[in-house]
């Protein structure tokens, strides 16, 4: 894998609108964005309704993922091009799912919906109709996903990358600054975690920085030891999916996991160590 295998630009996407072997998928938390206008031919996936278990806190299981993709008309041999709002957070999160469940060819649109909009490219409100398929997923690739006990065990041993904003990391905020701050979890960060906000990996238009800039950011500025395994986390696992994409897919680091329980789980656990204050 390298950047050209996993990331395409808007010209590539535009050239593949209507390509029968490419399914363009918009992934959002706020799906009114899709309804307002989307890349022509794109189908939508709702980050919460489609990708989360409706009862317990977990994401859709293998059967649920198969049912979702079959219903959306996505085949195992289709190339799936993901994009979305919020600088591709949720698209990166969905990309991580596609990798977890073993999809063959999956791509991310550099810059996502934001760059597409800022470029004034065409948006459509037509909802495509795709015939149902019989999608078959593999078992979850657990080498890409960290659960809480593994995270606690990683303190002081592996790279822990907290990709939230400095205020969330330090414990001054419990959520990003575009959300109300009324939640009950403890604030702070996992001891020994480095704070590399996801936004540092992105340009203003939502595209990813160059591989050279990204390597400098994580290795030189943040002091990550690329010889060690890495776990990325945020608040609920979608911003850290963006960083997982950078480290695992763009920079080709072999052992990088996303901790999707993230701070909403860790900050509510009884008895686990928490640090407050600025990054060291």
């Amino acid at each position, binding site marked *: 894998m390298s950047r050209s295998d996993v990331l395409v630009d808007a010209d590539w996407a535009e050239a593949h609108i209507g390509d029968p072997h490419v399914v363009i998928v918009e992934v*959002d*938390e*706020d799906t*009114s*964005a899709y309804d*307002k206008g989307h890349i022509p031919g794109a189908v939508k996936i709702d*980050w*919460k309704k489609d990708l989360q278990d409706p009862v317990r806190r977990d994401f859709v299981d293998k059967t649920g993922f198969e049912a979702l993709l079959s219903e959306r008309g996505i085949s195992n041999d289709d190339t799936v091009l993901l994009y979305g*709002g*919020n*600088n591709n*957070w*949720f698209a990166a999160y969905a990309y991580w799912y596609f990798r977890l469940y073993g999809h063959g060819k999956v791509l991310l649109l550099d810059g996502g919906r*934001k760059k597409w*909009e*800022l*470029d*004034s490219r065409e948006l459509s409100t037509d909802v495509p109709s795709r015939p149902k398929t019989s999608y078959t997923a593999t078992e979850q690739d657990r080498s890409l996903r960290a659960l809480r006990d593994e995270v606690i065990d990683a303190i002081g041993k592996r790279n822990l990358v907290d990709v939230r*904003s*400095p*205020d969330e990391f330090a414990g*001054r*905020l419990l*959520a*990003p*600054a*575009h*959300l*109300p*701050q*009324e*939640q009950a979890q403890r604030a702070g960060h996992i001891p020994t975690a480095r704070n590399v*906000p996801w*936004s*540092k990996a992105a340009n*203003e*238009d939502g595209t990813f920085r160059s591989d050279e800039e990204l390597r400098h950011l994580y290795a030189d500025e943040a002091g990550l030891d690329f010889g060690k395994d890495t776990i990325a986390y*945020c*608040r*609920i696992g*979608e*911003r850290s999916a963006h960083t997982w994409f950078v480290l695992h897919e763009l920079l080709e680091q072999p052992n990088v996991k996303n901790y999707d329980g993230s701070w*909403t789980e860790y900050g509510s656990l009884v008895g686990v160590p928490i640090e407050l204050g600025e990054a060291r």
Partner: protein
Amino acid sequence: MTADGCGAPAGGVAASAATGSQAVVEGRVVHDGAAVGTGYARLLGTGDEFVAEVPLGTDGGFRFFAAPGPWTLRILAPGGLRAERAVQADYGQVTTVDVAL
């Protein structure tokens, strides 16, 4: 939208979700007298450090729940339109910043 996701809905989370203790920064973006319904409001800290971003609502609106202190508000819109404003947020205050591009 509840706060169980991390995304910003267009225009920002509704003000009714805020309590009186929040440090709210909100406003509307217009261009040639019309609302800018496609674009982004970014909140930046010292040294242009990115903090948060909200897609503009159909009425050009945006809303942040910031930490108290000085911030820079940057607006991006299609056609290379952009603007920047200094803004001060305080707990219990709604700071309104209307921007004409």
